[in-house]
């Protein structure tokens, strides 16, 4: 896992107090009928401002589960998660929703675009409920979709569809950006892809980023 950022502010300070996300003894057990599956077993973790972290592991090793819990999408069976000094493990559904709205950005394994909304509208769906969002047009331009603003998902190529969720995630200027295998279904040919630009530029706006991938080679190279 890599934390990624400018490193000018509190980044890489190394102190626990400065951690954006801090997990202690995280355990997640799924009850599958009569069998208990331990997806996470006592995970300790700190993520700091400006870091870029890549999480690697084989399929079924609990990467997605960890991201879900860190993102406030799921709650651990035991252990604690702090966002700065807010305890996410004791937060109720409503508080978690607000937490996600105000602080979190996600890029999921599947694009999960609304097919009846254009690229611009898909992004605007998120910026509408954010406090200080980017203009949807700008964020789409950042990922190189400036010419495809009014296209519906069905009118976009696979690669273009892949980039809309990224624009969607960065447009709300989240404090933490969590990406779950963002490029796994169809990795763009190495090197000259434009999404890293988007990511790196978004990251300059002091965002923490987390990426988990099962690719042993570290996924993609960022230019």
């Amino acid at each position, binding site marked *: 896992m890599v934390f990624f950022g400018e490193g000018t502010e509190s980044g890489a300070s190394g102190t626990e107090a400065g951690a954006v996300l801090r997990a202690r003894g995280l355990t997640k057990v799924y009850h599958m009928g009569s069998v208990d599956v331990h997806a996470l077993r006592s995970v300790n973790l700190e993520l700091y401002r400006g870091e870029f972290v890549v999480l690697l592991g084989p399929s079924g090793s609990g990467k*997605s589960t960890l*991201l*879900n819990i860190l*993102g406030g*999408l*799921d709650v651990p069976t035991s252990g604690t998660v702090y966002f700065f000094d807010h305890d996410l493990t004791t937060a109720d*559904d*409503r508080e978690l*929703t*607000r937490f*996600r*709205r*105000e602080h*979190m*950005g*996600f890029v*999921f*394994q*599947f694009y*999960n*675009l*609304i097919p009846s909304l254009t690229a611009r509208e898909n992004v605007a*769906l*998120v910026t509408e*409920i*954010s406090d200080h969002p980017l203009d949807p047009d700008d964020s789409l331009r950042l990922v190189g979709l400036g010419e495809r603003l009014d296209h519906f998902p069905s009118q976009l190529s696979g690669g273009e569809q892949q980039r809309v969720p990224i624009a*969607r995630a960065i447009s*709300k200027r989240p404090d933490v950006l969590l990406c*779950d295998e963002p490029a796994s279904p169809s990795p763009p040919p190495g090197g000259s892809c434009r999404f890293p630009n988007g990511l790196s530029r978004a990251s300059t706006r002091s965002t923490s980023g987390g990426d988990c991938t099962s690719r042993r080679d570290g996924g993609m190279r960022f230019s």
Partner: protein
Amino acid sequence: MSEAFAQANGLDPGDTLGAVINGRWQRLRIVGIALSPEYVYEIRGTDLFPDNKRFGVLWMSRDALGAAFDMEGAFNDVSLSLAPGAPDAMEAEVIARLDRLLEPYGGLSAYGRREQISHRFLSDEIAQNRVFGIVLPSIFLGVAAFLIHIVLSRLVGTQREQIAVLKAFGYGNLAIGGHYVRFAVVAVLAGAAVGTGIGLWWGRVVGELYAQFYRFPVRRFDAGPGAVLLAVLVSAGAAVLGALGAARRASALPPAEAMQPEPPASFRPGLIERLGLTRFFSLTSRIIVRDLERRPYKALVSTMGIALAVVILVVGHYFEDAVRHIAEVQFRNVQRDDVTIVFNDPRPARAVYEVAYLPGVLRSEPFRTVPARLRHEHRTRRIALFGLAPEGELRRLVGQDLRTIEVPSDGMVLTTRLAEILGVAPGDRLTVEVLEGKRPVRAVTVAGLVDELVGLSAYMDVRALNRLMSEGGTVSGSFLLVDPPVAPHLYSVLKRLPAVGGVSFRKAALAGFEETLATGRLSRIELHEGDPVGRGMVLARLTPVPIDARTLAQDRARLDAAQAEKRAADARVERARAALEQAQREHQRADELSSRGLKSPQEREQTELVEATYAKELEAAVFAAQAAAFQVDAARAALLAAGSVTQGADAAPGGPARSTFITVQSPIRGRVLRVLQESERVVTTALPSWSSAILPCSRSSWTSSPPMR
């Protein structure tokens, strides 16, 4: 005259009609057409359906009617209105006192407004509509809610990842749930817009239909914004109810679900596994059974929805079948007479034999009706007590199992419903208070019950009823079996019999009746209400009904006779003319001789008189010849209409002759007010097909033939 009767018979103000009043045939002139709340449903007490052609209400001034009956100032019917705000209990009290007051004068017992026949028919209809108005929409809305539930549940299922993404980005449960409820609301608004339009239109159509059927004076359909709003709200409520389940599912979806595809639905061993029946089911059958078992609630609701849809079908067909069944049982098993006649007053039994000798009557069975109040303990009911002929064939007691019940020689048979109301069972004794004549009060045993389909009735053997009334063989009327071809003739005879107060024709007789009267087939009328018509414009075409060989022969003979008559008349004219000329010459000569003094003035006047007489005779002969010419024309026209005589170029050699239309033309310029008979059908003499037109001056009849005599 009541509107329905006037319209059914093509009568207008100014026309006259004959009526038997106080046993005398009198001509009445119609001075106006009217409606009365007492007869919104114009029906004879014992009939199932109104027969506007043969039953109507005439209103006359009390003075005129009183004079006709030699009973000036008398009354035989009185209506009272209770003070506004009077409690319901007051009605019973008023009725009781009124009955006591009028009993010495032969009062037949008063009844409340609820029992008034028009009021009852109308309020039953309204009550039935109210039930329909609640039950049918409930079923429809239930099905709609269920469909919305299914559709939205599927939608939530397919959009679960999108839902989860929205949640991940901070959309709350309420926002997500509300989104799906809005789906339903949009459907409701669209449906409400269309439904309101159709509803308003349909309401107007049905309102119009009711106004026509019940002859309401005012035709106004009023659906205020309140009604529309309520309908929309109720529909929206049902839709939201249907959407709630899906909305709840959407909002309960955990956001982490977006991270992975939907896990396979969880299945557990179900009923067939537990019962060890697995091997009896094929793999595809197991899919069906397990799918149903996994969502028992959904399967149940699906079944319910389909069940409700079937309910609509069944209920719709049930009503149709029920009415048909009742009509069939009533006319085939119960009332098997062709004609029922009711005498003005009870008559001695021999009247029945006199009736039996009327033309066309094949069988005559007497009956006796007596108004009576049946009393058992504290329960009473006013009914007409029916005395039937023993072993009668024309009016029978038939239960729902269609088995005939014989009228016992003693005691009374009640309809099951009446027995329930009175709380009696066979073997119990009832008090019968007769409301006619000497008003005897007797105890009668309930001999049996009959579960008739319609009405509340009590039946006795006519002889037992006569005994109860302490009278000899007395009858109120007779059921007749009639030879159909003679029915019209019988009807005209019965109408003029002073003793007969009412005649009602049953279906079988009616069919023959209409057939015999039929004069032509009316082609479909393309005109609509409001269409302008010009003078001489063709309004309708009548194609004469085919005439049988015998009638054809008669018509031919009539033409021959008319032609012979005309020749004779012409000959008479010639003879009269010759005689006149002879007389004129005689007169001239007499004048000359008289002037020379060779003839006396007396003789001269004689010849003058002879000449004048012959002149008159010639005049008469010329008229007679003209009349004979008309006869020939008429006879030829009849044959022409039958299509047997063709003229000139129209003749199709060898083939069947071309039939001729009779066209009905508009006598004036105006506007069609009402089309009474739009579809093609056989019309009879005096059946109006169009109503009046708006004229510059006044109303005028456009009927195709003169009003019924």
